């Protein structure tokens, strides 16, 4: 059982931690909100899209935010949920060869991108440029049901929450409950890895 001082240690560790999130759509916006509520001290969010009405079935934005930059909208929402979080936003597209620089100062990187080829390039580049940084990636969020197929694979510092039998987002819908499972699993892994280092879980 955690003692009161252990709980304080957890809070302190999370408040002193930083997490970078690449892409703030269905995965990234939901993971960011969970991490903000959990008390992560600093979040770095990266995206180049605006909020669209079609995003609202799965992403952590609201009707009045349609048309805003996702980075601005998510900053607002994080600030409402937990104003203690220090948010750094990069409104930019991640281009191969320079995908790493928003993440130079964070402890852990969450891959929350959309297209499979971009996911692969991002994982490659971050693994090579920051071999010691944990990367939490996700694959196979589209479709309905099949949640029992979702698994975690670990390969060195790469953690992948995946459903290898899922359709791609070009073939099926992506809806809040299922993408939320992946996003929250990613956020949960972040906390687990941060606290493992502290030995307080």
């Amino acid at each position, binding site marked *: 059982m955690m003692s009161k001082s252990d709980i304080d240690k957890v809070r302190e560790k999370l408040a002193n931690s930083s997490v970078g999130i690449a892409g703030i759509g269905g995965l990234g916006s939901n993971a960011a909100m969970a991490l903000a509520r959990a008390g992560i001290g600093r979040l770095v969010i990266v995206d180049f899209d605006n909020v669209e009405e079609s995003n609202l079935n799965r992403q952590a934005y609201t009707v009045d935010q349609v048309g805003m930059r996702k980075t601005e909208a998510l900053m607002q929402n994080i600030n409402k949920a937990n104003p203690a979080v220090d948010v750094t936003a990069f409104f930019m597209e991640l281009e191969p060869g320079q995908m790493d620089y928003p993440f130079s100062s964070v402890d852990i990187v969450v891959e929350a991108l959309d297209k499979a080829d971009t*996911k692969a390039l991002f994982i490659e580049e971050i693994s*090579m440029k920051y071999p010691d940084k944990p990367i939490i990636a996700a694959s196979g969020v*589209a479709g309905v049901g099949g949640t029992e197929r979702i698994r975690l694979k670990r390969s*060195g510092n790469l953690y992948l929450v995946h459903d290898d039998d899922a359709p791609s987002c070009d073939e099926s819908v992506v809806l809040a409950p299922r993408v939320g499972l992946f996003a929250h699993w990613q956020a949960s892994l972040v906390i687990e890895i941060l606290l493992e280092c502290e030995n307080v879980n």
Partner: protein
Amino acid sequence: MSINVNSTTQAWVQNETVKTLLIRMNYVFPLVVVKIDGEVIPKSQYATIEIPDGSTVEVIHLISGG
């Protein structure tokens, strides 16, 4: 004379590159991350890096959606 690919034993083929291994395994290669003995191989080197005998290859498949 064998290699391990995603936890299955496969024959080792002399001078086989990452690219030709992926074709042999039927993987579509813009959508994967490949590691040989724990090290990530960039896509630009798939056509030149050869798979060493006895190595462990991980091919991590990625599906669009986020």
